[in-house]
């Protein structure tokens, strides 16, 4: 393993911030390994996105605007990645730890007969081998996962764990040929985006999240959104709130939802179950508003105010708005 290859997940050229975090990290790792940093961008809108990626310290960006990537599920992406990996030579492949990223990583494990370390929040190089540092067991432990000598190794990278820093001499953008003789199994008939227009949850510096304690969908709009906007952040939710249909699943935080690590996390009417905690425990500061002082969330909040969210949140929003103007 000498080179680094970043898989760029995107839709019509719109990519999450973790892409730029991985591009920055790829440079550091490639320098340590004495190789080159590559990225693969395929699907509609790729050329446009590659232009933005050029500002990051990569050596080469491999591009194809192939629509099949969007029409068929996963298969085309894996074929392109295999082709790119073979062209680049022995490499560490970085994939974002998102729903799609997990699928891509898993397929590559089989396709390239490679090991995988999941959910890395840091990297070390030990005796020439790559070691990914990852939180495990709901944050009860930190594990080091070593990629043993092999041609290819895969690491899924936690969003928000690494800094994104533009710079470098400018990568060369080059076309990658469509792998030939492939057939694709799964047709995408409909692709719906939910909760667009708002700041992406994983990228928000502040997350105001609501749970079952809010009792219905309205308070997410009337109570949480104004506070989130005043703080320059986004609204999130517990699974209880998503399951009840109060918010789309794309807002769910936790083991089966998004992992976020904003500077500030405000949990409103959320009890702090282990599966929720896993998705937010690495936030900078955690504040809880809960009417039950015995809720588990008290154990890992920097500040818990015991009281009624419906009364406290509007007052807090007023204070924040007043401070801004």
């Amino acid at each position, binding site marked *: 393993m000498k080179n680094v290859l970043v898989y760029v*997940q995107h839709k019509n050229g719109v990519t*999450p911030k973790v892409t730029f975090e991985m591009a920055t990290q790829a440079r550091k790792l490639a320098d340590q390994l004495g190789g080159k940093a590559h990225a693969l961008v395929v699907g509609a809108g790729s050329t446009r996105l590659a232009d933005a990626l050029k500002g990051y310290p990569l050596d080469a960006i491999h591009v194809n605007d192939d629509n099949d990537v969007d029409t068929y*599920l996963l298969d085309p992406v894996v074929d392109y990645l295999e082709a790119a990996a073979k062209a680049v030579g022995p490499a560490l492949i970085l994939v974002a730890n*998102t*729903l799609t990223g*997990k*699928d891509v*990583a*898993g397929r*590559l*494990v*089989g396709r390239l007969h*490679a*090991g*995988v370390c*999941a959910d890395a929040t840091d990297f070390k190089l030990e005796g020439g081998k790559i070691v990914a540092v990852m939180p*495990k067991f709901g*944050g*009860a*432990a930190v*594990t080091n*996962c*070593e*990629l*043993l000598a*092999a041609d290819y*190794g895969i690491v899924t990278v936690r969003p928000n764990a690494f800094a994104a820093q533009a710079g470098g001499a400018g990568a060369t953008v080059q076309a990658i040929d469509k792998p030939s003789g492939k057939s694709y*199994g*799964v*047709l995408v*008939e*409909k*692709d*719906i*985006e*939910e909760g667009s227009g708002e700041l992406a949850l994983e990228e928000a510096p502040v997350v105001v999240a609501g749970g079952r304690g809010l009792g219905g969908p309205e308070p997410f709009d009337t109570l949480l959104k104004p506070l989130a906007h005043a*703080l320059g952040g986004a609204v999130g939710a517990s*699974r209880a709130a998503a*399951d009840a249909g109060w918010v789309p*699943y*794309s807002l769910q935080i936790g*083991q089966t939802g998004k992992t976020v690590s904003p500077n500030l996390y405000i949990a409103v009417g959320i009890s702090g179950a*282990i599966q929720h905690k896993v998705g937010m425990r690495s936030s900078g500061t955690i*504040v809880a*508003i809960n009417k039950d002082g015995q809720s588990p969330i*008290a154990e*890992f909040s*920097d*500040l*818990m*105010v*015991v*009281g*009624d969210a419906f*009364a*406290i949140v*509007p*007052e807090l929003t007023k*204070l*924040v708005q007043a401070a801004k103007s």
Partner: protein
Amino acid sequence: MKIVVTVKLVPDPNADKRIDDGTKRLVRTGAETVLNPYDEYALEAALQIKEKVGGDTTVTVFSMAPESLKETLRKALAMGADDAVLLSDAGLEGSDVWASAYAISHALKKVGFDLLIVGGLSDDGSTGATPGALAEYLQAPLVTNARKAEVVDGKLKIERETDTGYQDVTAPLPCVMTTALTFGEPRYASLKGIMGAKKKTIAPLTVAELGLSEKVGQAGSKTQLLAFAPPPARGKGQVIEAADAVAGAQAIFAFLKERKLV
């Protein structure tokens, strides 16, 4: 139609987990082994599809686990699976994701399936990479995070969750599918189910029967877990009982100001 569901046996997720200061190993106080919660959702999906498709549809549960944990699989049979296959072998110990998926895929080729339903995530491993690796070795298409699935004209119509919303997709059979938790809450085993499970078969399988050409177990693994360490401490902070809403809001505001967050 033959549906197979993979089930991992994991330490009870609700058991207290901590790192022992001396041994630096993970300690699970009083943890018993249970079905990986995500796989119960996968099984629920299989049972729902079986009920809809009817006919001679069967649901087989597959697990790779030590033989000593065999009885834990009875719960899946009590929930409604028809039979089970358990791949156990000392040679599998210490297998990483690649080695596990490699061995499991070969076992599943022997078992055979029209639809393979895999849980989305294992509570103890939590890589979520196994389904993709299985699909590759089985050379079957993969559809993940299904919240609805229906067999129409010999094809699977699936509604699946994505990072940004949802999709409708169509997949041919045989196919590998994973379930989102929204597919439906796993059913409870009925008394009749529990009694019936005692008579259902759990067929043993060993590595020697798989004809593997690569090493598995720790020796064949492509990753190695090094030390566990406790994470940086995140202690309990202050808990303030607010006299009224204004006082509560002011306490939070002052705290955020002190930390330069407003």
